[in-house]
């Protein structure tokens, strides 16, 4: 695998995952860099075969594990996630299902969750995001109609 393709994938997909977990660009950036460094030293196969699904899942898992540790250390777990309502694990499940396109069984196995927990996490977060999108749309519609009148 070419370095450029590897960097594109890491910058695009894995940063998005880290940022979705922590909702902090700088923390997400540091997280992806740290995981990449660790993989380059310990498990280079993951980076070389980044286009293959089992390795992708391993990288996502590493990012999630480190994110969980960081969140606890920095207090993001208590502060940020309390506002965000859902735990880090549920966010990881949702992202892996929607963007990563992994099956519920694969996600459950890698994050040590039952099928019911996986489905519940996906449905709850999807409903919340759709609710937010709907609210945003109606707000922008209202503000546009105010300007028009």
């Amino acid at each position, binding site marked *: 695998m070419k370095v450029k393709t590897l960097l594109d994938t890491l910058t695009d997909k894995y940063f998005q995952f880290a940022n979705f977990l922590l*909702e902090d660009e700088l923390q997400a950036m540091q997280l992806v860099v740290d995981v*990449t460094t660790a993989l380059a030293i310990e498990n280079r196969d993951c980076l070389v075969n980044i286009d293959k699904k089992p390795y992708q899942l391993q990288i996502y898992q590493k990012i999630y594990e480190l994110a969980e540790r960081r969140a606890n250390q920095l207090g993001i777990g208590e502060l940020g996630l309390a506002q965000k309502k859902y735990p880090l694990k549920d966010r990881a499940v949702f992202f892996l299902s*929607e963007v990563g396109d992994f099956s519920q069984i694969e996600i459950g196995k890698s994050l040590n969750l039952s099928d019911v927990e996986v489905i519940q996490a996906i449905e709850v977060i999807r409903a919340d995001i759709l609710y937010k999108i709907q609210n945003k749309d109606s707000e922008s519609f209202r503000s546009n109609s105010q300007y028009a009148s």
Partner: protein
Amino acid sequence: MQASSDCFHAKQINNNFTKNLNKQFSEHIESCPDCLKKIKTIQQQKKAVLIHLDSYKATKEISPDLRRELREAVELAHPKKVKVVKKEMKSLGRKLSLMNKEMFFEILRPKNLAMLTFAIFFYLATSALVNK
């Protein structure tokens, strides 16, 4: 955003409907307006969610820094092979040129010059004796 429907199958359709689709069900879907409506709604929702998730991608401001740091992380543990080979070749070339110089100065030493002269005379003398 949920589509209300009277069709029993439409109520069964959820976000994973494509994964659990059997042939009989798919034939029904093609002709059922309720099911088609439900599928369309789900597809629209999926699209909206993906657009929302796109907002978590690296922005133009952060992307160059992130790429630079990632490149360093990848190359720190595994420097490029080309660079290593180039470095090795350079040091080998330097060693060879040093050896050449040393050889040249070694020959110019009086002791070695005397040995060389003796060897030449010995060769000439023996070849003259053999050719007689």
